[in-house]
């Protein structure tokens, strides 16, 4: 239960917004829920709805609209490569495809061990340091810039040995 486990954090989040505007806390609470398993389960959706006094459909619509929320499990680490125009002008598309073929997966897929999902995403505001990607886990996001395929593979190897 989120409310029990994170009661202090939840009240800290709620104090940021006017008392009668609790709904504003839906995005931070979804991040909190996602911390557990890297995605948001139905039970947590309902719990957030109850805390904020809105319907679970309204909470679900937020997950659907915003790309950083997930309602299904993925790899433990999500490697999200920006392939928008400025990054693509610096070779981001080849980077993505070479990375995937090295891992034996297609863009959007997860490695069989469940460790890594590789995705193509929209601009991450790092256009001068492409190829680049962010790594998303339930715990947060981290940027990796000026990358080669070798850099990315050795990062993945470090995760492998750590897990």
């Amino acid at each position, binding site marked *: 239960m989120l409310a029990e486990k994170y009661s202090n954090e939840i009240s800290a989040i709620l104090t940021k917004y006017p008392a009668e505007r609790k709904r504003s806390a839906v995005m931070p609470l979804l991040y909190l829920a996602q911390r557990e398993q890297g995605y948001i389960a139905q039970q947590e959706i309902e719990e957030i709805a109850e805390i904020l006094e809105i319907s679970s459909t309204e909470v679900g619509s937020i997950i659907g609209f915003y790309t950083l929320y997930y309602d299904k499990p993925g790899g433990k680490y999500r490697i999200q490569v920006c392939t928008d125009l400025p990054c693509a002008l*610096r070779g981001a598309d080849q980077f993505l495809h070479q990375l995937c073929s090295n891992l034996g997966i297609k863009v959007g897929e997860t490695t069989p061990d469940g460790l890594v999902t590789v995705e193509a995403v929209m601009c991450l505001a790092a256009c001068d340091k492409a190829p680049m990607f*962010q790594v998303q886990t339930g715990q947060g996001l981290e940027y990796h810039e000026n990358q080669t395929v070798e850099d990315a593979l050795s990062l993945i190897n470090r995760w492998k040995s750590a897990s």
Partner: protein
Amino acid sequence: MTDIILLRHREIPGLSQLNIYLRHGGFQAFEKAVTKLKPDEVTDVVKASGLRGRGGAGFPTGMKWSFIDRKAWPHYVVANADESEPGTFKDREIMEGNPFQFLEGVALTAYAVQANSAYIYLRGEFWKIAENINQKIAELEKAGYLGDKLFGTDYSLRIYTHLGAGAYICGEETAMLESLEGKLGQPRLRPPFPPSYGLYGKPTVVNNVETLTNVPMIIQKGAEWYRKIGTERSPGPKIFSLSGRVNRPGNYELPLGTTFRELIYTHGGGIPDDRKVKAIMAAGASSALIVASDEALDTPMDYESVPKLGAQLGSASVIVIDETVSIDWVIYKTLHFFKHESCGKCTPCREGTFWMGHLIDRIHSGGSSWEDVELLREVAQQVKGKCLCALGEFSIEAVISGIERFEPDFQVMTSLSSPLKIRVEQPSTREST
């Protein structure tokens, strides 16, 4: 050489620490404003400075503040840190390197419009930056620069961060307010504009990070001093985010009115392998494509001159496209961005970006006919002027200008006798025309 005023952390090591920021005059402007100036006097100085919004629209900042409705309370300030335009990465550097100057700008703006709460809306990907900013806010509260009854006056101010979650549209100010209210980030019909009906329906000023970071120095050194930088109608410095096919991509703080040539060649070190510049996008993916003629390269980058080239300066995110790149591929890239980011609220944008995406796929994979190019242009014209917000309008800028100004590239694509076997993702693998 003009003073650097936004990216000062490049010259002052440790500027992201409070003691060092204070040692370099930090928060003197805010303290002076709260203790000695009336809120309207702060607004008047900003008006006189000629500062214009750096997020893209270039609207006069002081004028925006003066529109705030004084009959309805409370007032809010929202800092737009959603930076998501392909080609833009300046606000990120400011918040990482010079966070206190940004926060002082938020505080001064809040005082000027008498807001007691300010929110910083950061894109979700700026997770670490938000954590860092939260820490800076806590330090400021501890040091007495934020909180209740500041400097012994009755003025109180709290600043909060709020993370988005991956939606370009939330950079549009009314979509941002909806998102902050816990709803889908979809734009509102305007008018009413945020200064009369903003966050929670209350008067709200929304300003971009870079705009706000200008404010402390304007208050400290005065409008006269500020107007010495830049041009008469576009005063001040601008951070140009330079990306694409250049040797030294990055952020460059230069006076408004600097030429494309100076940015690309003097600062950016020119083009790899001495290739020629073919096209320039001055406002990120939202730009019309500028033909990189000598005349264009010598054009000053300010809010008045760039429109003469049939484009906009916008957020000054300069994407350089060299002669090896085919423009149909550029449009393929930008259209897929806008198709993905369309919020779906209004039909012309939702359907327009969807069908334009299909058309450019067909053109880009070869084997289509010129009719498809005509149809693409026609759909773009149908989108024009009919959207609820600027996103739909942005989506067609590169399409219309690209077909008109780089027609031979499309002729090549439509004259191929059969579709390319492999989708060409990389422009340099194909000869340009």
